[in-house]
């Protein structure tokens, strides 16, 4: 047989023919780099998740319970009865396609099943088959299909290729929140124990030790002390961080990633410095030691269980209100779910800044304030003194984290802070920021090392916009207010725009912050020389 020509070898090239198969007949192919590892049985068992066992997505046998089909169908039934939104979203999509090219995973992959409309259709087709007359009668011709094992595998594959960022929902004329469909899809997977290792590990850890990484109290204490050692080297000021201090006015909750990884640690250092400078009566907690809530990526019940620990700790420590750190989905859970789960909290006080007297009325119900809101208020009242030139080596742009921007509606505070502490700030193009922000590509538990390829292509639209401001304005620092961003964006930048680094907003604040009694600063929080202080 003759050798093929190269263009024939690239077999997908076919300008004229339609695809040989209808989308329902194309099975999901599990390629390394695009799926997360399966959960460990012990992590599922620890939080009483169903069907706890070790499993792997690439093995033929997913070790499902015998009646798995009934469990999923019954799971759909319960959810359409319980969540009116989900029921409506299953019925009303007209497949106009307005969402199709709004998803960063679709934009990065070109895989049609990553279009939000088709990703939802994967589940909708099953819903139609078992819950609508049209689907029952017309079957495939009515857009319905049986729930077979391959269909289940496809659902799993694509629901773990959505970061629940909700950019698509912004463009839906019907207001369908495709992220909610993913959330329901993942709940159904959870019923069969089809969790991923990168989500279920943190869930189990969070339930036991209070944070994703499993940092135990003594470790957290020594880590904070290490950070204070570095702060002393940089500023000459020794800080003694209050830990589990009963009767403190404020409970401080930081994402645990900021205690153990660069560049998050600089945010934790910045927070320690800021609170010290204003003399805040606050406390860290070794149990409410995590803002993030990976339970939210498994089931709403699990999210609620993990969320309650923060209030239990607030009660135990007898604080007045809670201040939360630069975290992402922590804020979505708080703003969109908390009141439904618990209603207004009745044992804390309405947050009032002890420094400026500002009443944070928006937090009347949840009793929690975001660090950027708190800091912006301090700056607005002229409480803090800054030397902006210390950040002059940084030409900064700001990435709106999906959960804080679209999920919580906070756009201005971080920008106000950055402009107050930096001389060089440039926005990315309008269609990539604020409510239209592109996801970092690693949200909703998709920041696992094994899916680096998926993360890189999912984050491409974001990186592409960063590259534009890098080339146009010389931007070299990407600021954000989310711990997942601080884990995902550094490799994303390394791949697409290696000249740009990543930081938290509070790091920039602490760099510029003039502290009472500090020595002449020669280096920033990263221990790099300040502008004009090279060689000192």
């Amino acid at each position: 047989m003759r050798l093929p020509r190269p263009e024939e070898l690239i077999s997908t090239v076919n300008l004229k023919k339609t695809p040989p198969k209808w989308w329902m007949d194309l099975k999901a192919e599990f390629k390394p780099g695009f799926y997360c590892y399966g959960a460990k049985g012990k992590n599922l068992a620890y939080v009483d998740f169903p069907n706890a066992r070790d499993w792997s997505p690439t093995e033929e046998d997913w070790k499902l319970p015998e009646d798995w089909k009934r469990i999923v169908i019954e799971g759909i039934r319960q959810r359409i009865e319980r969540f009116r939104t989900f029921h409506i979203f299953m019925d009303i999509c007209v497949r106009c396609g307005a969402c199709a090219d709004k998803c960063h995973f679709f934009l990065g992959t070109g895989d049609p099943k990553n279009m939000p409309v088709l990703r939802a259709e994967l589940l909708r087709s099953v819903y139609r088959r078992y819950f609508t007359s049209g689907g029952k009668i017309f079957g495939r011709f009515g857009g319905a299909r049986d729930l077979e094992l391959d269909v289940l595998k496809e659902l799993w594959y694509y629901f773990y290729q959505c970061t629940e960022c909700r950019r698509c929902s912004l463009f839906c004329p019907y207001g369908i929140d495709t992220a909610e469909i993913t959330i329901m899809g993942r709940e159904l997977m959870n019923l069969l124990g089809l969790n991923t290792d990168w989500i279920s590990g943190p869930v189990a850890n969070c339930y036991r030790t209070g944070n994703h990484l499993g940092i135990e109290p003594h470790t957290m204490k020594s880590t904070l002390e290490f950070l204070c050692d570095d702060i002393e080297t940089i500023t000459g000021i020794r800080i003694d961080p209050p830990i589990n201090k009963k009767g403190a006015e404020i409970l401080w909750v930081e994402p645990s990633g900021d205690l153990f990884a660069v560049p998050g640690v600089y945010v934790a250092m910045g927070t320690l410095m800021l609170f010290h400078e204003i003399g805040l009566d606050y406390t860290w907690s070794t149990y409410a030691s995590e803002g993030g809530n990976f339970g939210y990526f498994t089931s709403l019940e699990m999210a609620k269980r993990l969320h309650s620990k923060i209030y239990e700790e607030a009660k135990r420590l007898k604080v007045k209100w809670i201040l939360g750190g630069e975290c992402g989905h922590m804020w979505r859970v708080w703003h969109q779910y908390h009141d439904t789960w618990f209603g207004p909290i009745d044992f804390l006080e309405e947050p009032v800044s002890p420094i400026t007297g500002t009443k944070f009325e928006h937090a009347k119900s949840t009793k929690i304030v975001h660090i950027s809101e708190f800091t912006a208020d301090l700056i607005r009242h002229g409480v803090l003194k800054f030397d902006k030139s210390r950040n002059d080596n940084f030409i900064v742009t700001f990435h709106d984290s999906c959960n804080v921007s679209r999920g919580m509606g906070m756009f201005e505070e971080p920008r106000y802070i950055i402009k107050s502490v930096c001389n060089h700030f440039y926005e990315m193009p309008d269609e990539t920021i604020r409510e239209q922000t592109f996801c970092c590509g690693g949200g909703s538990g998709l920041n696992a090392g094994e899916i680096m390829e998926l993360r890189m292509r999912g984050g491409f639209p974001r990186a592409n916009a960063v590259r534009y401001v890098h080339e146009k304005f010389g931007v070299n620092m990407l600021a954000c207010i989310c711990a997942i961003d601080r884990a995902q964006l550094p490799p994303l930048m390394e791949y697409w725009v290696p000249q740009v680094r990543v930081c938290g907003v509070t790091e920039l604040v602490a760099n510029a912050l003039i502290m009472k009694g500090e020595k002449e600063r020669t280096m920033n929080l990263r221990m790099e020389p300040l502008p004009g202080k090279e060689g000192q």
Partner: protein
Amino acid sequence: MEIYDLLSKKRNSIIDKCFDLTISTYPEQSRIFLRERKRQFTNPVGYTLYHGIERIIDKIIAQESLENFIPPLEEIIRVRAVQDFIPSEAVGFIFLIKEAIYSLIYKEAKYNELMDLLSRIDSLALLAFDIFMKYREKIYDMKARELRDRTWWILKKYNIISEIDDSILEK
């Protein structure tokens, strides 16, 4: 007419055909979106492919040296290295460029010149392979580094490992 003049004359149709063929390596339902090449921020893949191909064709016409082809090839291959392609598919678009050029000029071009040009384009395929490997290696390097960065800091802080301190050298 000299072959490079011919290429220059047909520049736009060559670019369009190369782009169409390259887009056709993506699934059918996605092509209509990817083909929209002006939306720099809301269709970064289509934009990057188009402008990468445009620069490659212009460099072929201008008979530029091999190093000058690296930046536009990197633009395209960096994207395809993390998409659903096996390696040959990821770099194979070079042969689509070849195919597009051949089909548009073979009737008018002199045989020897045409053979020479097509053979030169082959060297882009070798270059593309190097670039593809560079970015795949980068992915694995990043995977390893991510794991190291998440643990190294702790090991150092807890004095489980230590490095030569700058202050020792200063003494």
